């Protein structure tokens, strides 16, 4: 198996934030099929092991590119940016205030199903903030301004995390 340069080339995609999700899914399925362990001779242990490894690589690569947040982090990693290491200097006061305010709003939602009507507009608001940040991220990457792109990535992490937490809270309220 040839080791691809990166996850984008693995799926024959351009290395950029905006990707064709249908092409990603289609190429993933095709590669998975091509690499199916059943295609390997039952007694060829070496080939089986390789198939398992490749399958795991394909899954990781697909999960990374499918998620906009993971894709953004991966693009930075490819440029040598350490996205795991965060210092407080990487976070603007305004961003922390924004998080505090959004979380206060979420916390104020009434318990039970009554809170759902409060959470919905907050989710929409977060979604639009995410879109604005994604545009900024793309612009920063295009301008090769990696330190700004890293800051925006951390803002996106905060927003996505809050969005997920709201979804969990909604599910609980609905009794799932």
């Amino acid at each position: 198996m040839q080791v691809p340069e990166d996850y984008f080339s693995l799926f024959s995609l351009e290395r950029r934030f905006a990707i064709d999700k249908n092409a990603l899914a289609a190429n993933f399925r095709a590669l998975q099929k091509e690499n199916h362990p059943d295609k390997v001779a039952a007694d060829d242990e070496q080939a089986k092991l390789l198939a398992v490894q490749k399958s795991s690589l394909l899954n990781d690569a697909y999960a990374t590119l499918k998620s906009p947040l993971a894709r953004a982090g991966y693009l930075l990693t490819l440029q040598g940016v350490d996205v795991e290491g965060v210092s407080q200097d990487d976070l603007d006061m305004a961003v922390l205030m924004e998080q505090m305010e959004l979380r206060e709003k979420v916390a104020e939602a009434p318990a039970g199903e009554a809170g759902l009507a409060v959470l919905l507009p907050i989710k929409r608001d977060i979604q639009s903030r995410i879109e604005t940040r994604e545009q900024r991220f793309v612009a920063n990457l295009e301008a090769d301004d990696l330190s700004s792109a890293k800051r925006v990535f951390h803002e996106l992490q905060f927003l996505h995390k809050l969005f997920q937490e709201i979804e969990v809270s909604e599910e609980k309220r609905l009794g799932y």
Partner: protein
Amino acid sequence: MAYSDKVIDHYENPRNVGKMDDTDLNVGTGMVGAPACGDVMRLQIKVNADGVIEDAKFKTYGCGSAIASSSLLTEWVKGRSLDEATAIKNSDIAEELGLPPVKIHCSVLAEDAIKAAIADVKAKRGA
């Protein structure tokens, strides 16, 4: 993951939750966050004329360990001078709360918050 009794105690009965007037020159505010966990922490101190922290408040959105770390810290800094408060290490907090290695970063966050609050009040009073 099992939380220690001390973490659970601070989580269920957080000390000194609240907000102080940030426009007060004797109030220092430290805002910090951990983007991957989504944690945000605001820690505030009020310093008297002798440079002693007479009150501390916090608000933390995050996991139990982050809440407990900041709650404990507000208890610890009261009655201490700014220099004494600066000397508090995240390892002291982690040890007191019995934080497991995966939650040490929560105590680091609390240390960052108090350091930021101290720097803020020093800058305000120096101005």
